[in-house]
């Protein structure tokens, strides 16, 4: 059986000679690899609706590896947002951080009480999307190695699935991601030229990406953002409805999120850009303090978020609101009280769905 793997390189923004060099050497090496469909698209964040690179990604149905200059978690959920869904592939290149490792005792107990995350919406196709961070290694060889490993895994999965199907034991779910026509479940529906895929996006975009494996649908971001970025879909799930209403450079809502589910893939702070818990940021030296930074500063995350929001409001010619609007009222030190009659009543009213 053939069994191909789609590999997509998402380019860095700007003209960064080192980054461009890695993209090019990686592309050259992958072109020689058997079993791989290679495409190159602009930076994932900048792919506006209708961009050929985005249409291409939407059309790919089999297993995919996406290599880009952003954290794998940010890339995965960014793809989820544009309808490119699948199981999140894990790579030994990017081991998952131990969730509780860096948490304080307080943090751990908070984690234990955390309401369950709502998970991705809709049907998840039976295919694996693995995102690799091109900032991780400066040579193409480790990426080629890793892609070979993923290709072998893809083929093994496909074989075992076909064996299952042959034995008539295939669970219904297994059919979800398969295209109607193919037997190997891969290959784009439409084909685009390399030039079309790389068509320059009209500008750099900036918007939040929700990690639904963390989001509990508490809607605090919806209350907090006064620019209409967030909305709720038909099922009442939070979505980033109007990406381009977001204010460039402002990461305020991610600071407000109680579950660190909101990422800004391009933000300079690793935790907000989608780094796993405890990850160390870039290796470059930060000169901000030498260039005039750190004069204001200080304060907690919520105060900082309110400041950032005020700045955007004033830029828009609106009134600053400070802490007066959409700030969650956290009662962090309060133990969860036992349910009482009022809780039951409220739940009953909720169920009436008025």
């Amino acid at each position, binding site marked *: 059986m053939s069994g191909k793997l789609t590999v997509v390189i998402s380019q860095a*923004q*700007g*003209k*960064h*000679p*080192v*980054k461009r060099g890695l993209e090019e050497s990686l592309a050259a090496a992958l072109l020689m690899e058997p079993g791989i469909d290679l495409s190159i698209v602009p930076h994932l964040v900048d792919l506006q609706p209708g961009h050929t690179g985005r249409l291409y990604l939407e059309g790919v149905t089999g297993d995919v590896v996406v290599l880009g200059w952003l954290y794998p978690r940010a890339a995965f959920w960014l793809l989820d947002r544009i309808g490119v869904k699948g199981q999140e592939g894990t790579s030994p290149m990017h081991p998952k951080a131990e969730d509780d490792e860096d948490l304080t005792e307080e943090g751990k107990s908070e984690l234990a009480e955390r309401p369950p995350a709502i998970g991705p919406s809709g049907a998840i196709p039976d295919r694996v999307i693995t995102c690799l961070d091109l900032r991780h290694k400066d040579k193409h060889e480790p990426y080629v190695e890793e892609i070979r490993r993923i290709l072998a895994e893809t083929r093994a999965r496909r074989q075992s699935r076909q064996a299952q199907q042959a034995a008539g034991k295939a669970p219904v779910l297994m059919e979800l991601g398969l295209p109607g026509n193919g037997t190997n479940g891969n290959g784009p529906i439409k084909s685009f030229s390399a030039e079309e895929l790389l068509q320059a996006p009209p500008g*750099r975009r900036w918007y939040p990406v929700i990690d639904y494996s963390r989001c509990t649908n508490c809607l605090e971001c919806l209350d907090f953002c006064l620019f209409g970025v967030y909305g709720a879909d038909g099922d009442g799930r939070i979505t980033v409805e109007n990406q381009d209403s977001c204010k*460039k*450079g*402002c990461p305020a809502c991610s600071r407000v999120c109680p579950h660190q589910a909101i990422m800004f893939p391009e933000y*300079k702070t690793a935790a907000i850009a989608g780094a796993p818990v405890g990850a160390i940021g*870039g290796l*470059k*030296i*930060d*000169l*901000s*303090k*030498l*260039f*005039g*930074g*750190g*004069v*204001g500063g200080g304060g907690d995350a919520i105060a900082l978020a309110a400041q950032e929001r005020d*700045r955007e409001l*004033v*830029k828009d010619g609106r009134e600053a609101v400070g802490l007066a609007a959409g700030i969650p009222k956290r009662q962090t030190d309060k133990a969860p009280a036992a349910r009482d009659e009022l809780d039951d009543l409220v739940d009953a009213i909720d169920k009436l769905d008025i």
Partner: protein
Amino acid sequence: MPEDQVFAIGKHRAHLPGNLLYAATNHLWAARADGSGIEMAPGVWRFGFTSYAIALMKDVYFLDWSFAPGLNVRHLEEIGHIETSKAESDLYCPATGILLRINETLLEDPSAINTDGYGTGWLYEIDCAEAPNHLIDATAYRKHLEDNWEHTQRVLKGGINSISDEADTQGDDNG
């Protein structure tokens, strides 16, 4: 007009033209004239990186502004971000006023910052609401660099961890 000044960073010599003023905190030069030497409207200043700043950062890869022309900016407000071969930094506004114009060509290709930092590598122009009295001349800027050099070296060598501790104890250097 003060004479041109030179500040030596190891083998590198940072040239500080005497006909410019300097926002020492941000390591930016400020000029009342545009690139062809013509004086701009009253209150308008053009800013760019000093060769000292460029020597610390090396080749500029990526420049990004979070403000668009026409918006109000405040002195020391964060207005952008830069990534270079050696460093990255948030960028802070050198004066209070209205951001009039940004050098659009740098967004696509920032190399002019390295090749012609005092000329075509200019960053933006600000219509200063308040006279930027904190700007100092080349002689004072060179002295500022000398006075802070030891501290700067410690920050550079100490890497990221020591920056937040040490920079906060540094006195206000707005002159």
